[in-house]
Each structure stands twice: as structure tokens, then as C-alpha cells.
């Protein structure tokens, strides 16, 4: 026998799944949306995606290089540090960069994207301790920061000339924003177009719902996410929106709006790729249930009252209360039975 025999606590067999593998799965699931974005929005979309992903990866590397363990010593051993970084590189920054790019409109300038990605990686993720430690979804936070800082260019998507069919429709805001602002966009949008993203204004990755559904199916089949999670969020949120819309003056309950609400804006993208982010969603199954229901309620309420596209905001807000959910909503152990309270007195 060789001396290199390993001793450890059981179990001695482990599943083949690794963090890296899961992140690669997410990237693969995001690819259809990215490709659809490039097809619809042209080279600008490609530039934004490239800028966001490269910035995210480089920012993570630079942070790794500077932080922890003496900058000078690391400079002296730059090659070794690079190799150790590559060894621990788990594609999380690629996912963050890709998601951030896909929730930006194609009119965003490249330097804005770089600033957003730097914010997402350095401030939101790495300063809190890197992979697995961030409090809020870095991509959502980056997008919110950009929305607040460069609101005109990032929010309004106008670069839609190549496939523009009807100039009335694409005066700027996304389909949903136009609709919420009192426009009559939905009357002119066919559901199938809404689904395919043809002739639809919006962010790079959000328009083509077919690509998103493909990504969703891939993630579900690979068991990266649970099938009911995005579904619960989208369906409940759209249904509540329909109910809320019925409370407006002169409006009646119109279930046909359901599809418009479900397919509009960033809801589907957020539900599939951002809300389900492992790090910032609850761990227990009941906590997850509460989390997705609250997400749906908040989304429909804020959409109704602010008339803005709020999915990134809502996800950020909900991320912040996840630690609370994890602490207080705990499953009972198998076989546990709540003891009946004995009535006192009498």
C-alpha cells in the first residue's frame, strides 16, 4: 500500500457536481438569450456583453491579486498567483457580467457598462467576501446603480431601428413601460411577437422569451433550479397585476392582460436567472416559497404604483431580507409533531 491513502470523515463518495459545473450550466442557459440579443440589437449588444463580462472577470482577478497576503509578495510571484487564481476561478464573475449585460438596454455606453460591472463585482460581491457571501445579487445591484446614475441612456431603449416595424410602438420605453404609462402598446402587440421578441423594445436579453424559456428548461433539466420557482413568481405576479389593473378607474377585470404582464419587461428574465441565484435566495423550501410569493406581490404592487420596470429593485429588496427568512422559517425535523397546548384553567 501506498502512503498517500486518504483518511476523512464519511461520506467517501461525492456527487460529480461542482460549483464550476453549476456556473457553466447557468452560462449555457444564458447563451440563447445573449444570442437573441445580438441578433435583435446588433453589434452594440455584443459590445455591451463583451465589456461587462471582461470587466467582471478582470475586476475579480485584480481584487484577488491585491487583496489578502501582501501585494509585493504577490507581484514577485505573479505567475504562481495567476495559476492559483485560475485554479479557484469558478465562473461566477462571468455569470454576473453576462446577466448584467443582458438586463441593460443596447443604448448603454460601454464605459457605463464598465462602471456598472466594476460596482457589481468589487463593491457588491468581493468586498462582502466573494463567492457565496454577497448580500444582494451583484447584477441586480449593478443595474440599479446604473439606472439611478445614468438613468436616461440605460433605461430608455431606443436602438431598435433595424427591425422596427411600427415606429409608434418603439418610442422609447419597453413594451411594459409604454403600457404602464397609459400607452396602448399592448393593443398592437401580438402575443406571439411578445413571446418571440420580434419588434419589441427592451433590454438585450429580456425581449426574446423563447430564448429565456429554453434557458429555463435547460436549468430545470440540469436540476440547477427547481421548476416551480420562476413559474410561481411569474404566474403569481402577472395574476396580481391583472387584479390590480382591475382596481383602476374605469377598468374591468381582464384576464387577457395576463399574458402581457407575464411576458413584458424583465419579469421572466429576473424570475429565471436573478431571483433563483443561490447565494441570495433562501435555503429551505418553505423559505423559498415565502420568498417567491413576496417577490411576486412586491413586483406587481410596485409596477402598478410606480409605473416603472422594477424587477431588479424588487429582487434586491427581497435579497436583503433573505437572512431573516432563513433564520425564522425552518422546516421541522422529520417526524416532529407539534405538541398540543393544554388549556389552562377550568
Amino acid at each position: 500500500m501506498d502512503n498517500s491513502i486518504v483518511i476523512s470523515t464519511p461520506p467517501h463518495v461525492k456527487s460529480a457536481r461542482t460549483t464550476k459545473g453549476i456556473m457553466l450550466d447557468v452560462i449555457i442557459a444564458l447563451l440563447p438569450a445573449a444570442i437573441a440579443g445580438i441578433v435583435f440589437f446588433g453589434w452594440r449588444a455584443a459590445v455591451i456583453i463583451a465589456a461587462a463580462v471582461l470587466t467582471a472577470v478582470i475586476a475579480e482577478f485584480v481584487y484577488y491579486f491585491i487583496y489578502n497576503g501582501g501585494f509585493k509578495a504577490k507581484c514577485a510571484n505573479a505567475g504562481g498567483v495567476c495559476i492559483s487564481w485560475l485554479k479557484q476561478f469558478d465562473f461566477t464573475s462571468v455569470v454576473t457580467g453576462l446577466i448584467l449585460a443582458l438586463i441593460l438596454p443596447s443604448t448603454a455606453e460601454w464605459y457605463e457598462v464598465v462602471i456598472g460591472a466594476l460596482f457589481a463585482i468589487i463593491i457588491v460581491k468581493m468586498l462582502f467576501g466573494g463567492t457565496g457571501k454577497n448580500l444582494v445579487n451583484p447584477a441586480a445591484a449593478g443595474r440599479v446603480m446604473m439606472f439611478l446614475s445614468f438613468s436616461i441612456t440605460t433605461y430608455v431603449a431606443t436602438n431598435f431601428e433595424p427591425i422596427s416595424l411600427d415606429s409608434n410602438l418603439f418610442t422609447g420605453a419597453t413594451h411594459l413601460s409604454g403600457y404602464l404609462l397609459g400607452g396602448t402598446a399592448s393593443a398592437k402587440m401580438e402575443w406571439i411577437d411578445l413571446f418571440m421578441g420580434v419588434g419589441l423594445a427592451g433590454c438585450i436579453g429580456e425581449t426574446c422569451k423563447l430564448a429565456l424559456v429554453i434557458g429555463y428548461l435547460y436549468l430545470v433539466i440540469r436540476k440547477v433550479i427547481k421548476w416551480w420557482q420562476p413559474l410561481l413568481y411569474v404566474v403569481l405576479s402577472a395574476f396580481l397585476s391583472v387584479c390590480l389593473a382591475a382596481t383602476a378607474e374605469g377598468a374591468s377585470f381582464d384576464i387577457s392582460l395576463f399574458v402581457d404582464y407575464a411576458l413584458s419587461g424583465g419579469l421572466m428574465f429576473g424570475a429565471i436567472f436573478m431571483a433563483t441565484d443561490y447565494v441570495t435566495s433562501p435555503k429551505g423550501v418553505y423559505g423559498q416559497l415565502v420568498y417567491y410569493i413576496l417577490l411576486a406581490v412586491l413586483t406587481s404592487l410596485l409596477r402598478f404604483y410606480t409605473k416603472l420596470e422594477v424587477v431588479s429593485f424588487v429582487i434586491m429588496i427581497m435579497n436583503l431580507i433573505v437572512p431573516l427568512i432563513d433564520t425564522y422559517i425552518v422546516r421541522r425535523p422529520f417526524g416532529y409533531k407539534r405538541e398540543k397546548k393544554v388549556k389552562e384553567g377550568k
Partner: protein
Amino acid sequence: MKAVKGKFFFGGVHIRDKKSLSCDVPTEVLPEPSVVCISTHQSLGKPAVPCVEVGQSVVEGQLIAKANGAVSSNVFASVAGVVREIKQMPSASGAEETFVVIQSDGSQFKEYLPPLVQPSPEQILERIFQAGIVGMGGAGFPAAVKDAPKTPVDTLVINGAECEPYLTCDHRLMIEHADEIVRGARYIAAALGGAAIAIGIERNKPDCIAAFEPYDDVKVVSLAKRYPMGSEKHLIYSVVGRYVRPGKLPADAGVIVHNVGTAYAVCQAVELGKPLYEREITVSGGAVASPKNLWVKIGTSVKDVIDYCGGETGRVTKAVLGGPMTGTAIADYDKYITKTSGGILLMTSKEAECSAPTACLNCGKCADVCPMHLMPMQTAFYSNAGDFESAAKLGGTMHCIECGACEYVCPAKRPLIQAIRKTKAAVRTAKAKEEK
């Protein structure tokens, strides 16, 4: 009886079982080793007290260590020969134990207890105690204690789940000795005062299910193939549909669970008077030349067993005594088979992946697969920070059955079981201190 489906519970994980390595290999008998080293601590509770002296000659089946107190079990000589030494040395798990070393003289002279004919329940119970029978599934709880419950028991569940990957010894035992297992189960049921008999078998062993269907007094339950189906609480729920409440014993739910190996041993003890000094084990893994199922004498060294199976092929990354999910990794082959060792596995680096843990992603997969519905990631997080009280409270650690499903599924390969054991130990010490 025709097999019925077991009840569903949430949690558990589907593991590639690798049973095909050895499940079709008929059981062989390992030739008698020249020396056996028998531990006196082969069950839960107190170690047995040696009752032989150095230089004394013993025969196969002779009592060499007497049970010390109620929760303890007798230990028997597994070969005929001379006691060469009684010494202290570390067991497979690392604890110091007393071993009786017997040099075989090759005579194979046997001496059993008198066989029982038409035994009464009291006689059976006494025989189970005399024959030193313990739970053969791995925990090693003395069977005589289990079979004298304080609450009335109406069902005896025989555990044929064998949910651990690689191990096939129970599988072979069920095919080759179904009749003895049923007879043993009948004796135990009689000792329990006429309990009904049910046997739970995982669906990946259709030949075993078929082997038990002809018996009319045995309810056969085919269980989903999910680890840890063989866990006592989950087996009871699947087979009988009753919960064992936290902190309670199965007997409180009116059920007693025995492994198929235990039932077989009881049959032998009652009908032949043969005490427990032999068991079936599986030798498997990618680094064993020819995986086998073997009858081995208690006290045989791991080295003898592996040599019989053709030795190693390729590099061994891990050697495991027991199953891959709950067994003990051993550092060398100078370890000895006990009543509770179910197998010897030599695993290649491909099978026993030993990569360094990465950061926890909070993915919650450990909570999803936890059969006890706990939160292992909370235990790991808080125990890492030294806050064992929060770790136990938020993670529900004290309910943990240490099945290892969480660590199996963890994509970051975090050492969760280690954290859980550490937390349990810390909480117990804190409690003991408080009581002082």
C-alpha cells in the same frame, strides 16, 4: 405476500450504487486465517470482559469475553486454537480497545450452544443474548435489548433496503438464505409477543423481492431507490407509515427494526445454537482485483481478506471499512473485521474524490436532500465560527442521523458531516458541564 409500494417521504438522494460490481457474485467462504484479532467492544454500550487467559486453548464458538451489564454483548472465538495475547490497540475508528489474539491450530473444532426446539419467547430472548447478537446493519445495538421493549410492539420490520452504494452482502444473503431470514424473523416476532413481520427491500433488488413473496406471513414492501432508505426512522415510515418522534425509540411507535443479517444470525443461534462469530461482507471498489461477497470470521484482518480477493489493482486513494456513506476510512490494512463491518472497499481516486472544499454557495441542496429536513449549511456556517449553540439550534443538528446525503450532494464539497459531528460533540460537552 405480493410486494406493495413503500410510502413516500421528502428528502434523500439518488446515488449511483455501483452494486453491479459484486451483486452477481455468489457468496464464498473465506479460508480460515492463521491469526484472528477479536475486539471485545463490538456493540454499543460497555465493552465485554475477557474470560480467557493467555495460553489457553479455545474452540470455535467458545465464549471469550462476557457481556458487561445490560447494554453489551458476548464475544466468541471464531477459530479453534490458542489465545496468544490479550492486548490494547486502536480499532478501525481509532479508539483504544482490548483485542484477544487467537492463533488457529487448523483443527476447526466447533462447540455450539444446544439447539432449541419449539422455543418459548423467553428462551429465544435468552438465546439472542447468549449468542452475542447485535444489529448487523452497522450501529451494533445489542439485539437482546432491542427485543425486550418497554412499550408493546405490533410490527417487526426487517431491513433489507441496503441503501449504501457498493455493498451487496445483504442482497446475496436475501437471495441465498431467504428461508433462514424468514425463520429468524419468526423467532424474533415470537419473542416480541407475536408481532407482524414486514420486510422492506429497495426496488433495485427485484430478485430479493421475488424471493420473499412466497411467504404468506411476510409483508413485502418495495421501497424507492433513495439513500438513506435503510435509516430506521425512514424505513419505518415507508413500510408501516408511522413516524418515530424526535428523541423517541422505534418501540414507542410500536415497531422494532432488524437487519436481514441479524434475522439470519438469530435463526442460526436458535436452530443450530451457533453464536455470532461470522458474518457476510462485501469486498468491492475499483481498486480490488475481484470484488467478492464473503463469509468471514470476526477478527480476520483486512489484509487477509484483500489478499484472498486478488489484492489491489491500481492505486488506492481510500480504504473504507463499512459502506462508502457511513463507513470508516482506514489508514492501513492492519484492522480487523467486527460484527458490524459490512464491507471493505478499496476506492480509486476517481471513485473517492478528495478535492479541496470551495466557498459555500448557499445553494440549499443539502437542505433539499436532508431526510431529517434539517439545515446542514447553517450548522457548517456557525460551527466554523465557533458558535455551536446557534449551529445546533438553527441547523437542527441534534436530530441529524449522519447519513451523509448532504455532503454527497454538496457542489462545493464542504465537509458537512465533520461540522455536524463537531457540533454534536461540543453541545454534549456543554450540556454535561451544565449538569455538573
